[in-house]
């Protein structure tokens, strides 16, 4: 009797994730870290495929060549023929492929900065950066065998990762640690910083091997957050003949800044292919401090300031606020665990990959830049005016692609939760990133315990504004359908409602101090007993503010707004869409609080909308 060839499911996990995708000062660090992790995972997947493994994650037909469009997540799953000995050999081979890919990046960076690097320190650090864990299990026979094996291998891998073994490491006295995460010592000799394009160290900033690789390996440039933040201004300028001239005039001076090493040229923004700091006068001082040719840069800065001073104040670039979007699929684990066979699982993997490609397109169409899209995850920077439409399209595209993966239990298909965090481009990137991830968490879970109870968790949109010098303002609701323009505001999904308010702010129909006046009202009504009297007083009071002279609403708009005030401050919930805990009116001062938060966030988006349409006319 011939011996039957066994087949196994092999699962790998590659890291370090945190170090690659979270430790960052410049957007370049963040973007390249994610890119590098994907490339290393891709190399591992390729090694498996070359050894005749059938890939499940990443998708089986994806292009696994280095620098291909395909983004590969750091967990890889494949079916392989063979027993324990073959699996062990294959996992070793795959590890080697992953480590070699990392070392190729390291070599690139090393060559660029060789003169200033302490070689022994570099070599020692490079040796144990990559984390690699593997587990496999035999796929039995019969019904449910694949499903059982998939769960078993995932649990085995989790068990392996319970022991995060590491080698001892003895550093050197007197050497500063990496400014990004402090995990290793600086690789620069005597604190000397090499003059390499794109390195752009702050005074005293130290980088370890991983930090340096993220900063200088590869050739691609990545737009900085400041460029994303000034994008509405650039688009607005292109709208007007007079200001198109401004952009043209700025060009030679921006080129001078590039030459002086003060800014980088960025890809994607043809009308203004430079970092936004060039036109942000408040950033010129620190930009000069970071650059090599101070004299040349100084002259260019002066010229830029002169050109911008000729514009009306409202036509100049604003303080650089932008949106960081973090999206993640809901109930993905459940969807995967219900898949019974490998072919369907591979199809699921391809669908996710399709979404990742689609997401990149959507973000680009909205003048944003993707830091990462892989599977059901998206991390992107977006201008203020396009972040909501972009979130909407991502959400709808995800729903459409995954609509066939309904759970057997509740007949619900996976959905996409999106968190948007609006912040200042000069805020510490690590903080901005943490804020974005928090927003995503709120989008998923809702605020407080209410969502879980009301079953309105997941499928959420959360928008958080963290302006400098004040606390965070949050709104969150579940996604609703796209609605026509005329639908009652209370029945409109949060994204469209915010955009409606934003347009009113941008058109000057509502004054900017408005949300703050509403807040004062909150204080007045706090402590009142809930009931009809309070309800009537609040409704009338808010409507009174909306009828003031400095509010320029058409009759139709006023009617729409007042109906919304009645609904939002109604004290009982009659409208079926208003089931989320944030929208349920409580019939007291907190309702006004919520309205003012909504308006405050819309106002920030309105700043972008106004700049993009070229200011007031």
């Amino acid at each position: 009797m011939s011996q039957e060839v066994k087949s196994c499911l092999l699962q790998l996990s590659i890291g370090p994730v945190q170090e690659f995708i979270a430790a960052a000062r410049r957007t370049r660090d963040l973007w390249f870290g994610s890119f590098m992790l994907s490339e290393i995972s891709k190399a591992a997947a390729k090694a498996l495929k070359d050894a005749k493994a059938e890939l499940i994650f990443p998708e089986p037909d994806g292009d696994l060549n280095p620098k291909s469009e395909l983004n590969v997540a750091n967990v890889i799953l494949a079916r392989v023929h063979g027993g324990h000995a073959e699996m062990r050999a294959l996992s070793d081979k795959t590890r080697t492929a992953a480590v070699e890919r990392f070392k190729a990046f390291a070599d690139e960076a090393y060559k660029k900065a060789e003169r200033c690097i302490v070689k022994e320190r570099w070599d020692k650090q490079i040796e144990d950066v990559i984390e690699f864990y593997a587990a496999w299990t035999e796929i039995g026979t019969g019904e449910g065998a694949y499903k059982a094996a998939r769960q078993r291998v995932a649990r085995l891998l989790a068990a392996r990762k319970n022991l995060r073994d590491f080698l001892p490491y003895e550093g050197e006295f007197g050497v500063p640690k990496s400014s990004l995460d402090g995990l290793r010592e600086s690789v620069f000799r005597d604190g000397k910083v090499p003059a390499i394009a794109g390195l752009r160290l702050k005074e005293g900033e130290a980088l370890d091997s991983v930090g340096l690789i993220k900063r200088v390996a590869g050739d691609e440039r990545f737009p900085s957050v400041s460029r994303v933040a000034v994008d509405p201004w650039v688009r607005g300028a292109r709208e007007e003949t007079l200001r198109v001239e401004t952009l043209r005039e700025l060009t030679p001076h921006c080129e001078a800044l590039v030459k002086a090493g003060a800014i980088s040229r960025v890809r994607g923004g043809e009308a203004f292919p430079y970092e936004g700091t060039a036109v942000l006068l408040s950033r010129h001082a620190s930009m000069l401090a970071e650059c090599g040719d101070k004299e040349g840069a100084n002259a260019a800065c002066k010229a830029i300031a002169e050109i911008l001073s000729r514009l009306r104040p409202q036509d100049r670039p604003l303080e650089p606020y932008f949106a960081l979007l973090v999206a993640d699929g809901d109930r993905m684990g459940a969807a995967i665990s219900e898949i019974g066979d490998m072919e369907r699982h591979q199809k699921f993997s391809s669908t996710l990959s399709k979404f990742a490609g689609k997401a990149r397109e959507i973000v680009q169409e909205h003048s944003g830049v993707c830091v990462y899209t892989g599977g059901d995850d998206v991390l992107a920077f977006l201008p203020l005016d396009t972040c909501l439409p972009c979130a909407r399209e991502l959400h709808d595209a995800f729903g459409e692609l995954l609509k066939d993966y309904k759970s057997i239990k509740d007949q619900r298909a996976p959905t996409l939760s999106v968190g948007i965090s609006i912040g200042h481009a000069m805020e510490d990137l690590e903080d901005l990133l943490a804020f974005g991830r928090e927003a995503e968490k709120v989008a998923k879970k809702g605020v407080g315990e209410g969502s879980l109870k009301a079953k309105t968790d997941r499928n959420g949109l959360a928008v958080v504004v963290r302006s400098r010098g004040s606390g965070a303002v949050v709104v969150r609701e579940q996604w609703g359908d796209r609605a026509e323009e005329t639908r009652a505001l209370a029945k409109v999904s949060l994204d469209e409602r915010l955009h409606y308010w934003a347009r009113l702010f941008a058109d000057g129909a509502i004054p900017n101090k408005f949300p703050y006046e509403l807040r004062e009202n909150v204080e007045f009504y706090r402590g009142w007993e809930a009931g009809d009297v309070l309800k009537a007083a609040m409704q009338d009071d808010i409507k009174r503010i909306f009828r003031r002279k400095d509010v320029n609403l058409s009759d139709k708009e006023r009617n729409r707004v007042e109906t919304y005030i009645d609904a939002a401050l109604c004290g009982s919930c009659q409208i079926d869409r208003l089931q989320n805990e944030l929208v349920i009116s409580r019939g007291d001062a907190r309702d006004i609080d919520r309205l003012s938060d909504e308006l405050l966030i819309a106002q920030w988006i309105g700043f972008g909308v106004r700049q993009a349409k070229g200011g007031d006319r």
Partner: protein
Amino acid sequence: MRYFRLTPLSPLIARDSRPFGAGQGNRVRSMDWISPSVIAGAVRTAVWKEKDTLTPEQLKTIEVHGAFPIADEQIYFPRPLDALIRKVEKETGIADILRIRPMARGEGLGVPMPHESLVPSAPVEMPEEDFKPERSDDFWSLEAMAKWLGCEEDQRVLMRIDGLPAPVKEDRTNVTILPESGAAEDTKLFTTTGLDFVRRPRDGESKGRLSQMRIGVRVNFGDYTLLAGRFLVPLGGERRLAETVESGDQDKFWKAPDALNVRSGKGLRMVLATPALFAKGWLPGWLREEHGNLTGTIPGSGVSVRLVSAVVGRWKPLSGWSYERGRNGPKALRRMVPAGSVYFFEVLEGGAELSTLWLRSVCDSAQDGRDGFGLALWGLWSGRESARCF
């Protein structure tokens, strides 16, 4: 032995290893808890202030153990990583916990381990359906710890953890004020994050009161005793102050609870209460390969053991700034095994008295032990590799 309690007078900055200075980013970050060596340095400095002829070598012989939170007359320890919390009943605070234990070998597990003789650890009685574990509080009370460690059986357990969250992080933004104008200097802005030791009612709790979290420390002064029983020490970044008061009755916090006054059977569990430094990275230097196994003698006990499995968190960097005369600068970086990590041993000979091993350092270097690293708590387990994934 003398026992002290430290009360931070303002939020403490437990700096991570990232540099900070002019132009190096505008952020001073804080770890979740204070490193043992920071406390050791503070206490030794207090001794030196009483007697400034002592040399660094003499001061380093003073043994400073701890940095454990004390709140409402209870001492707390870092949560053990071998507990997987399925669910916590909100009303009663009772947690449904699965024990993470060494796995049964079966016909080969399909998991390459750092050493051939080791097995991975997985939760026992894992339900068929996957679930998202709940995050426990960062610290467990001594009582909960005693219950957790004292149980030899590996089944799932329902118990109150009575946990304590790590101090809340508080951000402060600082500016440089120009003396001549009284205005803030342009671009001279920096933010510090500190640990606030004032405990507030938890989120969602309608009632509650403010209370003070303190830091418990045990000191063996050896030849160089400290006269004062009450003094102020600067602790951590920015030289924030902590009031230090000697307390005679803290003894009970530092002894193994009566329930753990037992002799282990075959299974012995070591839980790190403070981060540890080992000569072999994650693996204690006192374990050696012998006949294909990792075996050794637990420091200072004579109990010989074999390592079966371990649950170890990701390494953490240890750094700091040396103020030693002639040796001023950033210290060399080392890698620590995080607190809460658990090692599963099989006792090869005799049995270990848990109480005699309690809160002694298991680090390979005696100096690391004197600096407060690697203090271990000890408990039982069945000694049978029985966890399964299916």
